[in-house]
């Protein structure tokens, strides 16, 4: 067996291992998950909650975001909304000023300093039991907050709860494939939560107990992925992060390849840098599955994707070279297509890869069910589009990491 074949088999083995790990977790906790999926929510008390909304050049979406918060099914005297304009240069501040004097809303304007400074500024203005954050391009379902608070009440040792993030009204292909990705991500996130191994509390509507910030301090710049770093810091402090898949938050997805590329480069770069910053946790069993599974699996996934990209590129170059040899020898000739079963590849790798794809499709279907969304045939588009473009942002993020060059927000 060649070295390339050994590497490929190892990568596929690890990928299957990760998916089987999630599947076993699902089977172990299926009753608990099914019960959580079915039941409604009821709160014994309504604790006070503050939602911080940092804004930077969000004039188009900020109004809708605030309105969705005002429509939350939660007592008005227990919910305050802190809007912090982080030095926007468009009409965002003008939009925000509409809410001046609103009984539930406090608005602030500050010099641009980055998202983490805006959120920390907002936290300093609150005195509530719970503090949440909502990006100004996201919208919450009316029952989202109550459902999240019910998780805190059912599991009192929980320190933060992440919601189910769903793509808001996808229109073009790029947004539709992201919807499939987010639905699959919902399943993976749920499994990570069941393992106690969540590595990111997303900007759209993750809710924290106040004590998290009192004990650990506020958000940090953290390579422009402050929502990931706070989760790493909480895992380090053995603070439990839960996931409430019935609390739905809708976010506007990048609508062009360029925007998606920039966003993902920032995410992957953030993952690499935060994992390096917290490398002392990796493979330390006292930090549980977060250290034994989540971070190693993420690092291996990045390396595997890059290797497979170059392997595919190598094969493509080899194929082109062969065609050039053929062309030089006998000119252009029609390719021979054989329908004989003998020429169908029946190697072990084909069957294992088929099983791997079946596991991935199952993850997407389960994610769609958790999100209460319909099955979408864009699963196929997702696989095609991401296998072509994802390696580029992975490579760019690795390149930036090697050069220690931090990507911009937008």
């Amino acid at each position, binding site marked *: 067996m060649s070295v390339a074949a050994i590497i490929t088999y190892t990568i596929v083995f690890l990928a*299957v291992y990760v998916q089987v*790990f999630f599947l*076993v977790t699902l089977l172990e906790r299926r009753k608990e998950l099914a019960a959580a999926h079915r039941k409604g929510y009821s709160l014994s008390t309504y604790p006070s909650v503050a939602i911080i909304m940092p804004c930077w050049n969000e004039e188009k979406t900020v109004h809708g975001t605030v309105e969705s918060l005002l429509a939350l099914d939660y007592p008005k005297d227990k919910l305050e909304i802190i809007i912090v304009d982080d030095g926007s240069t468009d009409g965002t501040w003008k939009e925000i000023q509409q809410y001046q004097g609103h009984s539930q809303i406090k608005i602030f304007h500050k010099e641009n300093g980055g998202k983490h400074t805006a959120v920390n500024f907002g936290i300093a203005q609150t005195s509530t039991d719970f503090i949440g954050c909502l990006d100004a391009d996201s919208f919450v379902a009316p029952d989202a907050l109550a459902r999240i608070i019910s998780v805190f009440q059912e599991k009192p040792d929980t320190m933060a709860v992440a919601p189910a993030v769903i793509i808001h009204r996808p229109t073009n292909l790029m947004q539709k494939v992201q919807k499939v990705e987010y639905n699959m991500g919902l399943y993976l996130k749920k499994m990570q939560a069941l393992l106690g191994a969540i590595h990111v509390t997303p900007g759209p509507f993750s809710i924290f107990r106040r004590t998290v910030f009192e004990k650990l301090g506020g958000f940090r710049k953290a390579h422009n992925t402050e929502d990931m770093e706070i989760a790493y810091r909480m895992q380090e402090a053995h603070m439990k992060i839960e996931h409430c898949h019935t609390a739905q938050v809708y976010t506007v997805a990048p609508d062009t390849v360029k925007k998606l590329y920039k966003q993902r480069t920032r995410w992957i770069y953030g993952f690499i840098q935060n994992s390096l910053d917290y490398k002392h946790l990796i493979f330390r069993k006292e930090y549980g599955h977060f250290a*034994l599974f989540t971070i190693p699996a993420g690092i291996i996934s990045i390396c595997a994707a890059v290797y497979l990209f170059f392997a595919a590129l190598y094969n493509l170059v080899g194929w082109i070279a*062969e065609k050039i040899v053929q062309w030089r*020898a006998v000119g252009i000739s029609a390719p021979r297509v054989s329908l004989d079963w003998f020429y169908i590849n029946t*190697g072990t790798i084909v*069957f*294992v890869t088929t099983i791997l794809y079946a596991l991935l499709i199952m993850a997407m279907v389960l994610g769609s069910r958790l999100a209460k969304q319909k099955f979408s045939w864009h699963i196929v588009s997702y696989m095609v589009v991401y296998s072509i473009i994802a390696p580029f942002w992975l490579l760019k993020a690795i390149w930036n990491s090697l050069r220690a060059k931090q990507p911009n927000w937008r």
Partner: protein
Amino acid sequence: MRQWGKYLIVLLLTCGIFAISWYVSSYFSGKKIAEIRDIQNKIAVDILSSETQYSLLEELSCSDINSSIISDELLTLADRITYSEQNLSEQDDVLLLKKQYTMLQVKDFLLKKRISERCKTPFTAILYFYGTKQNCADCERQGYVLDAARAKYPELRIYSYDYNLDLSTIRALRSIYKVDEPLPVLVINSKTQSGFKTLEEIEALLPKDFIKRSQAQAQAAAEAKEEKK
């Protein structure tokens, strides 16, 4: 401890998935090898039949001997063995089949040559020696040219031999036709030609009457096709 137990169970399940995949793959590989063996057995029987017919030539007329199907079947077999060499993991079995296939090719060549001499029928063949151990870039090109030659001249018999195959018959052929590196080497009507040859160069080396006959056959076939339309 419970934590490590889960990692171990998942490891066993993953190994199980690989084991099942390997088993299924082996099953299909076995089927493919059996198919090659079936074709080889059929060709061996056909060749034996032709050899028997040849032995009976004293009593039979030349028109009763028919062995044209064998060459097509050899071609099918060649494709399957080349594919198996590149894709199947059971290389010991494939190597054995390749040796048997080589023997069948030699037998087919010798038989056709003898029938041709005895019955005074035209027979034009190319023996093509390629290398698998040497980094023979020209062998790949030569393969494409010979495919094109086979397509252009259906009557042309091309026998491909792996120069590096550890088989006494190959060593004998190399000695008889003085085949040596650099590869590729073509033996066209018993004359050894070393190095890559284009289709035009091969055509120049083929007997003139063979080219004329092939052109006439091609023209007749085209006219028949036109008439059918």
